[in-house]
């Protein structure tokens, strides 16, 4: 019986025999945390009696959630992280102004590579699977254990395969594919499972869209998402990869717990309605839903291609008078590129605010919190009750194309419609 890509990657990192549902202990290639999960991990790490991190090269710290510091408590957390990085010789510490949102930054920096086993103390650490690695979110205590020992125990996940056929329509991309998929299988449809994405649609997708897909596997309960590396992956890594890497592919006779297969040729842009990422409809069914705020950015959709699409739609147009638009480039590099390419000017001309990279608005932290009764269409990943602010506020999840179109229309709108008008 053949093995899946995830089973092969795990096998390359452990002496234990890798089989679905077995507990194994695997070596870690990168273990990182942010300003809200690192402080707990640092405390745990010290309580464990550890004197040094297993390998300072394999640790990264990214203050991104409540940064630039939103208040004194947040500032104290960020300070603690910075001091820890200094004390333990951690080079991959990314200060505000030289970094960005962790899950856009680490792959951009070439620190997450095919064949790696990666853990991050943040649930969206599953993003990196788009490069063909095993990447999963853990809590702070697990992370501390990995910092101390350089390894961690895992239950080998069973793999579900998702095959997408056809040719996507204009304005349909990675976000629509993952929202559609979660809508089909539900928020626990892949609980504890690895989600392997494949098919001609995936092969045609740029890397930025692939990151978006893997970013949201956690919203279906998935342990990790993965896409086999191909020439697009290798091109992305050229001049970027900080280490050697190893490419794994699933065997043709690998065992899958379940295989889903869809033709996406007729798929329209997808929107997840409050209060669940699985509450998904086509954009045409949601016409007339008024919005107060539009957010474009985050670890899901804060990459250059996302901003390019938003700029294409907003160019020469004005944001609806009743709407505020906040655009967050994922990293400083994305910001700078967007500036060079004229996207930032387009956004400002259209009446949108452009912010420094932060996770703030996505989790109702700062820089775009919703008031009671407000509705937001957002390119982020969660629309739970109160996620972006008041308990009685409403979040619709969509692609940058739909978000930008809705910013102009003042209500949920399809990009096609707005571009015609």
């Amino acid at each position, binding site marked *: 019986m053949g093995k899946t890509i995830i089973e092969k990657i795990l096998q390359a990192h452990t002496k234990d025999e890798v089989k679905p549902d077995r507990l194994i202990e695997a070596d870690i290639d990168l273990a990182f945390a942010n300003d*809200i*999960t690192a402080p707990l991990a640092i405390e745990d790490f010290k309580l464990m009696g550890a004197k040094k991190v297993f390998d300072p090269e394999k640790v990264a710290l990214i203050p991104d959630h409540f940064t630039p510091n939103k208040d004194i408590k947040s500032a104290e957390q960020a300070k603690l992280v910075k001091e820890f990085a200094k004390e333990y010789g951690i080079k991959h510490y990314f200060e505000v102004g030289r970094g960005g949102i962790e899950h856009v930054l680490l792959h951009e920096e070439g620190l997450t590579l095919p064949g790696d086993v990666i853990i991050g103390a943040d649930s969206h650490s599953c993003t990196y699977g788009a490069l063909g690695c095993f990447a999963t979110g853990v809590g702070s*205590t*697990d992370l501390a254990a990995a910092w101390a020992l350089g390894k961690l125990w895992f239950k080998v996940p069973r793999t579900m395969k998702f095959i997408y056929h056809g040719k996507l329509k204009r304005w349909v991309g990675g976000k629509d594919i993952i929202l559609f998929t979660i809508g089909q299988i539900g928020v*626990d449809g892949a609980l504890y499972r690895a989600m392997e994405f494949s098919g001609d649609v995936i092969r045609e997708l740029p890397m930025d869209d692939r990151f978006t897909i893997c970013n949201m596997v956690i919203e279906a*309960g998935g342990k990790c998402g993965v896409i086999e590396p191909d020439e697009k992956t290798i091109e992305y890594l050229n001049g970027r990869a900080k280490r050697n890497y190893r490419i794994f592919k699933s065997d043709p006779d690998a065992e899958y717990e379940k295989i889903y297969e869809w033709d996406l040729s007729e798929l329209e842009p997808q929107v997840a309605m409050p209060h669940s990422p699985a509450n998904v409809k086509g954009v045409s069914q949601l016409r007339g839903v008024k919005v107060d705020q539009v957010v474009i950015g985050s670890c899901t959709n804060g990459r250059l291609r996302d901003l390019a699409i938003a700029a294409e739609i907003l160019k020469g147009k004005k944001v609806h008078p009743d709407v505020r638009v906040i655009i967050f480039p994922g990293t400083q590099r994305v910001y700078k590129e967007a500036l060079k390419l004229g996207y930032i000017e387009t956004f400002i001309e259209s009446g949108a605010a452009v912010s420094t990279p932060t996770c703030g608005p996505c989790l109702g932290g700062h820089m775009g*919190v919703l008031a009671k009764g407000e509705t937001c269409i957002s390119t982020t990943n969660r629309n739970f009750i*109160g996620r972006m602010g008041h308990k009685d506020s409403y979040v619709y999840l969509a692609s940058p194309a739909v978000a930008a179109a809705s910013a102009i229309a003042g209500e949920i709108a399809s990009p096609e419609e707005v571009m015609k008008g």
Partner: protein
Amino acid sequence: MALLRGKAWVFGDNIDTDLIYHGKYLPLTDPREMAKHAMEYVPGMEDFSKRVSPGDFVVAGRNFGSGSSREHAVLCLKYLGVAGVIAESISRIYYRNAINNGFLVLECPNISKKVKTGDELEVDPESGLIRNLSSGEELFAHPLSGLEREIMEKGGLIEHIRSLMEG
């Protein structure tokens, strides 16, 4: 692990980490402060932290703890004195975080349909046997694995790793 006895508080499916502990409270570090906000975003449960008694159980449907990896969502319940969470299924990260913090989590089919808020439960963490003393019904949760039990018995992963490093 000893037998536990406490009252049940029953919640629905998909109780996510924002409902358990909202993102805006993540900068808090004082356990007493954290405990105050447990379950605050669950509609109708705003004052859960005042109503619950130490030793009570949180009972829920499918996919409890979905969402964020924040350990605060485990710690707030633990600091509040909740004895554990028994749900039909528990999100992967929440489950690990709970074990790592020595906080009992059990997966038990149909529990949210078989138990009402206020029912008195007797729970054997070792075997997974749950007795609903109010209805007389017996339910069986999946017992913890060997490693999970080992970590729980030491009080969490910190102690477990500390003993490994000393050993």
